[in-house]
């Protein structure tokens, strides 16, 4: 039987308590809103992509449960300094991890720290919390005016 610690691993608790890349960027050229109305989780992400197509900086603001805050914090770490062209693939990998069959072991080499969020698979009602930030960043990347939601 799984334990609550599968979901609330120390890394998640830590990122919830002191989220990385939190606050508004001084310089950004993409942004988007995310909102899960049933939960009340709200996110705003800022993205600065440079002329070489590199995500030079990324940050988020908002409020939500530990899963959504930690996921956003970990996401900013995972994409900062990487080429924007790789975002779509990262998005798919993360999405796959949190919805994959329980028997599938997350590939930590590919996922890095993001693997700590694989525990949400055991908690179907919480998957939407983990993916809200990714959908919001996707909106920012595509300059969508629509508020991202995952409910």
């Amino acid at each position, binding site marked *: 039987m799984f334990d609550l610690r599968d979901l609330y691993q120390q890394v998640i608790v830590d990122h919830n308590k002191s989220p990385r890349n939190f606050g508004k960027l001084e310089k950004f050229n993409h942004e988007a809103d995310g909102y899960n109305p049933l939960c009340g989780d709200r996110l705003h992400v800022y993205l600065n992509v440079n002329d070489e197509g590199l995500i030079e900086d990324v940050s988020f603001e908002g409020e939500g449960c530990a899963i959504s805050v930690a996921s956003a914090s970990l996401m900013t770490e995972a994409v900062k300094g990487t080429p924007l062209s790789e975002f779509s693939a990262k998005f798919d990998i993360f999405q796959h991890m949190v919805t994959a069959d329980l028997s599938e072991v997350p590939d930590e080499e590919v996922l890095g720290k993001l693997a700590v969020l694989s525990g949400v698979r055991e908690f179907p009602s919480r998957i939407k*919390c983990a993916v809200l930030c990714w959908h919001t960043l996707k909106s920012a990347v595509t300059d969508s005016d629509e508020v991202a939601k995952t409910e």
Partner: protein
Amino acid sequence: MSMDLNAVRADFPILSQEIYGKPLVYLDNAATTQKPQSVIDAITHYYERDNANVHRGVHALSERATAAYEGARKIIADFFNARSVREVIFTRGTTEAINLVAHSWGGYNVRAGDEVLITHMEHHSNIVPWQMLCEHVGATLKVVPINEKGELIMEALDELLSERTKLVGVVHMSNALGTINPVAEIIERAHAVGAKVLVDGAQAAAHLPVDVQFLDADFYVTSAHKMYGPTGVGVLVAKESLLQTMPPYQSGGDMIRMVTFEKTEYNDLPYKFEAGTPNISGAIGFGRAIEYIQEIGFDAIQKREKELLAYATAKADAFEGLRQIGTAKEKACVLSFVLDGVHPHDLGTILDREGVAIRAGHHCAMPVMDFFKVPATARASFSIYNTEAEVDALFAALKKAQEIFG
């Protein structure tokens, strides 16, 4: 007056199960209550023995089904002390009952420049229908404010009431805060300016006695599923004098007396407002649920629920980092709170793994969340079958949540 708690618990088969290897502690009664065996049996019996459409057939089953359906209406009429069964309209629930009144009575009586007055602690279902009505006819929606305890500011009610006020919509007991509003007084003041009053009794009707004649309520609405009955059925209890003047809400079979392609003559009350085949088993289950409440009696129910809320409130007062949302002097059965450093949704998940079912969220009362400046709360809501040991389990689980986030 007291009740045998073990006997009451034994009436609810769902309670004796384990969740993740721990005894189920069901504290989400404000969302929906569990159902006693007698209600489950009444519904099963109907489908096993009596199932037929009502008000139609001349055969034995249809007569039995009709007798059971109309028998439930009589039980409900007596329970709310309606003047007659003509004042009892079955609906899908509280939400549909409010929509019925907003469309039928509101559409007919509320005009541009008029006002509809609701309160800051209404459930969305007693906000949105009035908002839509006001938008449609050009009326204005006004809101009675609340104080930090989650009580209505009654002086503000007096200031907001005027001859422009056509209707006051007020919740009898708040689902998000537990506050019990002084509806008799509100109705008296509203009537003094000529306004009608709709009381949302979804949360109240299982916890305190309601006498629509004593209250002089124009419209009283509630749902069966929050009073030990099935989902998908509720009731509008309204003054016959008002119902007579109101146009039908939905049209179709059962609500007519005579139909030609030129003209339709509507049926008498209450059928004028019950188009189509109704939720027959639901109504029968609702009637049985009310009998269940009557068998225990409100004296015993209120005594027990007060005891339990006092026990839980004392524990909450002593719990470090816990802030209660809703501390009205008159309240019942609801402990809404936030915990420092733990988001309500994380609490919901952690408590679930301890077998404790609570609600986390905005409780369909977003204006209440805005007022208290919280995105959501955790809410434990109690019923007649809950025990002190279950309250202890709740607080033990809260402790565990604090440890995880420590």
